[in-house]
């Protein structure tokens, strides 16, 4: 599309390029969860691109367009669906960052957002906030909606902290060395995931380094347009990770795809080179294992019907469709069942649950219904956000299906 973008923001060229590539063909509509749900052009990728273009061209007010941009899940399903190769992710992140600088938020939203920025990336603080959350929940009837939805997200209780060892040596013949990212909120919510991942990697002949003192990779902050904060926190990990490793492994989909965006996030920064090198080494757990070649697991004594739920930030953002399925298919006595409309977001989407509870709710329900239709006895995913969302919606339907991270299932497959 032709455009007359007037913005002199540093990111304007990237935004202009993405907009220019969009030919308005509408192929993205079929992939977009919010368009499917809401049925309005403004809530489609094409419509959002057009609105962002309108704001940058100063045809409409940013504030007017913002609710529609806010409703974007950032699931990136439109990216592989786009024949003309619009870098929608770059556009969205750049645009959100630009708008955040000038955005006027209602006080309550602002405080809620600040809370997210200040707690989610820090497992220790998150633990503290959880305790505060319990008190908050008693006060819930008196709190504004923005807080109420945050409190609803919190689990009833956190598992006890489970510190990981600084290094888990390779089991059997050594095939290499990796580092495991573990600074995420996931570590507070579900420490068993990284524990399982470390054990599976080790069982596959890898030395697993897990340096202490890691922080969040910043992806969740990037996702909500808090770019400076994202950079600041991401930097703390750079010196912690050893050089002589083959890859940096993440077990969270959003972290993997967010770190892939470091070259954009650090553009124009003095440590761009360090950030890019770090980014280049990061691989998702399942992608790395699939590339390395899985050591034959024992499998299960009794057949398990497993539904693999694609995390958007693995499937759409990183193109990982076959890799996790290949791993699961190598487990004896494991039968994969297909979830209909597998590429559809479950509504978790980072902080989306907090920002857009109604849409998140509808998508969660829809996803769980699709899963139940496939008739599995176990659900597996590669992302804590999806796992939390699926658990919540399965509980709502009183279904007692286990929802595991793929690392947990693989660990079980080695143990059985």
């Amino acid at each position, binding site marked *: *599309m*032709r455009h007359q973008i007037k913005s002199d923001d540093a990111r304007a060229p990237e935004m202009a390029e993405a907009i*220019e*590539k*969009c*030919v*308005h*063909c*509408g*192929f993205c*509509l*079929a992939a977009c969860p919010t368009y499917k749900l809401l*049925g*309005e*052009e*403004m809530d*489609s990728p*094409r*419509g959002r691109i*057009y*609105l962002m273009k*309108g704001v940058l061209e100063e*045809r*409409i*007010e940013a504030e*007017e*367009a913002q609710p*529609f941009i806010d409703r974007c899940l950032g699931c990136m399903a439109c990216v592989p669906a*786009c*024949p*003309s*190769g*619009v870098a929608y992710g770059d556009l969205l992140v750049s645009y959100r960052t630009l708008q955040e600088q000038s955005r006027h938020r209602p006080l309550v939203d602002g405080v809620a957002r600040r809370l997210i920025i200040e707690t989610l990336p820090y497992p220790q603080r998150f633990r503290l906030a959880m305790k505060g959350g319990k008190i908050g929940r008693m006060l819930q009837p008196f709190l504004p909606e923005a807080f109420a939805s945050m409190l609803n997200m919190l689990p009833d209780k956190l598992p006890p902290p489970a510190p990981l060892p600084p290094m888990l040596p390779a089991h059997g013949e050594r095939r290499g060395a990796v580092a495991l990212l573990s600074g995420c909120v996931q570590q507070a919510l579900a420490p068993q995931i990284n524990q399982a991942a470390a054990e599976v990697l080790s069982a596959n002949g890898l030395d697993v380094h897990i340096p202490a003192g890691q922080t969040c990779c910043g992806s969740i902050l990037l996702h909500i347009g808090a770019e400076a904060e994202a950079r600041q926190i991401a930097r703390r990990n750079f010196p912690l990770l050893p050089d002589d490793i083959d890859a940096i492994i993440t077990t969270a989909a959003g972290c993997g795809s967010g770190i892939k965006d470091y070259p954009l996030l650090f553009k124009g920064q003095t440590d761009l080179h360090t950030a890019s090198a770090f980014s280049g080494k990061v691989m998702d757990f399942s992608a790395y294992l699939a590339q390395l070649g899985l050591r034959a697991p024992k499998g299960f004594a009794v057949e398990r019907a497993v539904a693999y739920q694609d995390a958007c930030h693995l499937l759409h953002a990183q193109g990982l469709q076959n890799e996790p399925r290949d791993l699961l298919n190598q487990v004896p006595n494991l039968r994969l069942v297909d979830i209909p409309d597998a590429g559809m977001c479950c509504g978790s989407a980072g902080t989306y649950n907090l920002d857009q509870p109604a849409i998140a709710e509808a998508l969660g329900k829809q996803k769980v219904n699709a899963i139940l239709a496939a008739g599995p006895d176990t659900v597996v995913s590669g992302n804590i956000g999806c796992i939390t969302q699926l658990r919540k919606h399965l509980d709502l339907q009183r279904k007692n299906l286990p929802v595991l991270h793929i690392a947990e299932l693989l660990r079980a497959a080695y143990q059985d």
Partner: protein
Amino acid sequence: MNRSFFEALQKIYPDNRLLTRDVELLPYESDALTAFQTKPGAVALPVSEDEIIDTVRLCHRMKVPFVARGSGTSLSGGSLPIADGLMIGLNRLNHIKKIDPEQRIAVVEPGVVNLHITEAVRQYGLYYAPDPSSQSVCTIGGNIAFNSGGAHCLKYGMTSNHVLGMKVVLADGTVTQFGSESIEGVGIGPDLVGLFVGSEGLFGIALEITLRLMPAPQLYRTVMAAYDNLGRAGDTVSMVVASGLLPGAMEIMDRLAIKAAEASVGAGYPLDAEALLIVELEGEALQVEAEFAELRGVIEESGAFEIHEANSEDERARIWKGRKGAFSAVGRLSPDYIVQDGVVPRSRLGEALVKIGEFKAKYQLDVANVFHAGDGNLHPLILYNGREPGALEKAEALAGEILAMCVDLGGSITGEHGIGMEKREYLPTMFSPVELEIMQDLRRAIDPEEIANRGKMFPGGEAPALQMHGMHPLERQGVISRE
């Protein structure tokens, strides 16, 4: 927008289904032809047939023009809004109301996405044959308005061959049924279904459409042949047809189109080829196998430097995904391009390709070519840089030459995208004044106020038909008379 009209609309639609704010209207100002932009007065999003009927009747009564829109994928500007008019978004009427596998029919609402029909009837071994490249997103309502085709229309015909009947609301608010549920039922009298299909929204809105389903082919065999010369690929198409074979689809892409599509999907297209021919046979397994041997023979004789057969359903799907996304993929090569749609008789395809090559040189512009070669439907994509002064005009002039060539060679100015906004001025190059006047008379008989998709198809200004009231030019010359 007229206030009393607006108040009446508010009685039909709750607030959240009547879009009126600038920010809500802006994304509706273009369809897939972004060269035209018009912001509508309002967008209504009906969820029932009754709401559509009430809306059309209101528009008729108050003489407010309206445009119906599905997914907004028209490449000819067919669903471009009318300034201060009403846009009726039909995408929420997306229910398949009935599937009858015995009779092989489906009854659908206009906002149903083309591909969803095939997905819904696959379990019965059936499918809906017309496959426009945008089938994953375009809706049946739009397919009807523009008589959409697609790669596989070579064997099975266009949309009009697959619509058995429909309930419509005409532009004057009349609700009626055309056709019926049986193929035989429409043998008597004029083909009113046929009249409505391809009328580009000028007659009204289809509310409920009965579509014919076909048994899904038992087997597909898809072959790609690479050529170092575009003309040779074109000649091969004639050789295949001369051999007596009728493939499901025969498509050609040239070097630029191959490059764009390959970058988009990685289908394994030969990047060193000047032309790629894709031929697909489909149908009953034994017959397809026998015919494929014959096809293989023809292609081996055709001078292709590389022949590759799809080895799996996955590979076949990628070959088609690349082809079907080729227009949009060209967005990777150039910020601006005109998608052209013309037809030449298949036997003159080679000639047409040579001419397009000459135009390219004359205008110093790149042209990427994608053809439904089997039925002579050309899709030259004219690449230009809109920031260069005069570039658009040059590209439009080239596009005009291609269309004139199509008519000269005995073809048509549109194969499947329709006239819409884009080709209004070219309509008289294909139809005589008498034919145009008959079309106008028909239109005015159904839509005296000319409110349905006003400004589309016929040449001229906002309500072009008005300019053609009075005596026909030939009447004035005394050549014809109404006595």
